[in-house]
């Protein structure tokens, strides 16, 4: 295996008395889909926010291609090549679908501080190409505010890909979607990850998605990693069964 794209080493985060993330370490390689799962409150989202700079870690280190990200703001981390989608979609409602992607491209190409050019003419072809990749080209002219939820998720994916990232962070990418849509979105994500040789880390509650799409799975509980490995390893793991016992989530969706 080649050198990992993302490495997290002994991450620590406390909120008052709550030890939300306690000594979590993992790494993601190029072309790999790594799922981060665990029951509610396990520390997944906190972990995520430590990775992209939204929260500051109390201890440990995050490295992107060997470079330490400590103390960087989300926008600086983005510049280093980290794309992100949110649990609740965050898009620009007063722009069309294409303009949302164009905005990300404008920022990526350092054209934000241009005052006289027409934004709608910037990187139009590139935006169309990205939208085509996620199957949204027919909707390019629609206002973002009227899109169905699944389409918003696909748009977010296109926006996250705009800076040609090395790492894709997806926080519950299929939350709020119908089962058929979920598989379609994650199939799409996996194709893109393979084709572009991205590293992709995602959290997810839907176990069908997790076991169907992830190359490797990390299970967290109460701030700690309790298991790590392929789908088969995780299915067979006693500690994981213990955590999920009775919830039925390991064997099916919810």
């Amino acid at each position: 295996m080649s050198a990992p794209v993302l490495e997290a080493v002994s991450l620590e985060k406390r909120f008052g008395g709550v030890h939300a993330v306690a000594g979590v370490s993992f790494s993601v390689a190029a072309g790999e889909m790594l799922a981060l799962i665990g029951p509610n409150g396990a520390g997944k989202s906190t972990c995520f926010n430590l990775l992209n700079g939204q929260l500051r870690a109390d201890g440990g280190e995050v490295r992107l291609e060997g470079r330490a990200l400590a103390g960087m703001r989300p926008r600086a981390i983005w510049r280093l090549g980290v794309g992100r989608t949110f649990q609740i979609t965050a898009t620009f409602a007063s722009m069309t679908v294409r303009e949302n992607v164009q905005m990300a491209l404008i920022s990526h190409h350092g054209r934000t501080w241009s005052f006289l050019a027409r934004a709608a003419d910037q990187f139009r072809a590139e935006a169309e190409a990205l939208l085509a990749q996620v199957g949204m080209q027919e909707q390019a002219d629609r206002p973002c505010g009227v899109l169905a939820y699944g389409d918003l998720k696909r748009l977010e994916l296109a926006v996250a890909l705009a800076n040609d990232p090395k790492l894709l962070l997806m926080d519950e990418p299929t939350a709020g979607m119908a089962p058929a849509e979920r598989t379609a979105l994650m199939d799409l994500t996996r194709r893109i990850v393979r084709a572009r040789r991205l590293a992709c880390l995602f959290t997810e509650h839907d176990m069908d998605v997790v076991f169907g799409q992830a190359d490797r799975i990390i299970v967290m509980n109460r701030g700690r990693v309790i298991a790590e490995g392929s789908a088969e390893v995780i299915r067979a793991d006693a500690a994981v069964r213990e955590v999920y016992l009775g919830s039925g989530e390991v064997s099916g969706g919810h």
Partner: protein
Amino acid sequence: MDFVLIQFLTGLSNASALFLIASGLTVIFGVTRIVNFAHGSFYMLGAYLAWTFVRAFWDWGGREPWLFALGVIAAAVAVGLIGVAMEIALLRRIYRAPELFQLLATFGVVLVIQDATLAIWGPEDLPLPRPRWLRGFVDIAGSRFPQYDLVLVFIGPLVLALLWLLFHRTRFGMLVRAATQDREMVAALGVDQRKLFSGVFFLGSALAGLGGALVLPSQSANLQMDLSVIAEAFVVVVVGGMGSVPGAFLSSLLIAEVQAFGIVLLPKITLVLVFLVMAAVLMVRPYGLLGRPQAHARPSAGMVEPVLRPAPDLLGWAGLAALLVAASAPLWAGAYALTVLVELAVFVLFAASLHLMMGPGGVVSFGHAAYFGLGAYGAALGLRYLALPMEAGLVLAPLFAGLFGLVFGVFVVRLSGVYLAMLTLAFAQIVWAATFQWVELTGGDNGILGVWPSAWAADKAVYLWLSLALCVGGTLLLRRFIFSPFGYALRAARDSELRAEAIGLDIARLRLAAFAIAAAAAGLAGGVYAYAKGSVFPTYISIPKSVDALLMVLLGGVQTATGPIVGAIAYHGLFVGILQATAYWRAALGLAIVLLVLAFPQGIAGFARARWERARGLEAA
């Protein structure tokens, strides 16, 4: 030491009145999220109604203290009912409109109440005849202190205690506290919002009325009470933390004491003092002394920002036609029309500059007149001290205003929402107070005269053309910015800060740039205005001037790029038209504003765009 004690007591008694007004304002804001400009008018009505009631009661039963108290309470209840009437008849229809529209509507009410008061009670100040027991003094540390003021000292804490009981011991009070924290949740729990809001408006307005009634014996009722008190009340509420009654109490003490001692110790800067305090507090505590960040407001259904599209060609041709009509005016119109056209050009640029911040920037400034005035004063001071000709003055005006915008903006962009708006107001008041009180530099109230154009532009027609070139040119440049990558980035930061940051945008820097650009453009407008009038005055920076700009943008429609242009023309046209037609122009203007808010909650241009998009089958968000 006696002086210290007496000033301290004076401060305490002023604090009581201030607390009554501010507590009402803060309760209304906490629950309904409405910034109620009319609150100062309710205070004024309290004074006038108390004047009428107390005198009527005295005529009937002699000048007894308890009849005075009865009159004061009757006035407070009556004002409370007027507040409820405004809530039911007006605000209830526009709770779903953007917050600023509600503010606009309440400002319309301010104008109507002002003229109604003038019509009912006349223009004279109305002092309450004071029987002996109201004129009494007590001896404190060898000085005479008014007995009535001593009573006032205790009324503030008493009302605070009563409010505490109301909020902690009754179901209504519990709902008010709950709604202040999270009103969507309270609504989701099945509480009747209409009753709650009406109740809150009664309480808040009655408190304002009570405040007005109680200051009557020492101040007499007058027509300037409304706007002079509302600025102070805003300061108190913001310093205390919006929605916090104990915060309002603390900050009314702070502000009143600062004023009481400032008047004696720092008479040169009395006007600016409270705003300096507010600016200082907001820099250290961005949510006021006891305020908390508001629960994240969930966007209500159907309130998504519409997509900003470039104007259709038709609109461009219409604009060109209007410009040609204006430019050819010297051929067919008189001198007065030319003056009005210059003003129109100035206000179009002024409104467009505010719109850059309010619309794409999502940053509402309550003190935009500061930059208009700074431009005008920049030109005038350049003339007075450097003997700069008009050409240099018109370059200096935007630079001067833009520089101040850059400095103030550094502090402003760190805040958000109403607090941000209030800090811009504070900076504007500081600038206004400087022009007013720093007489040696600025000439104070007398202004600076003789700011005339250079010889080649002295002709009215030439100056009109120059104004059109500068103002229309500036406005078109601002429009260009809106559709540029910079403008899109600004809008991105407004639509979703989370996503904007996640695609590498530096939100604070974008907003700062927008603030400085808007200030510079307003400054250019101010400069052109100064040479058109031949003089500059502190009124260029006053609160009504800032409100004018807000009204223009909101009337036109904040969500369209053409809105401010339409709004400036409509507003100034309305103003000029009404001014000539009726003595009660304030009431007419106020009614027009209220009706426009009810009929076009998206603004005139927003309404037109919705029609256009529907007719074209364009999908609107």
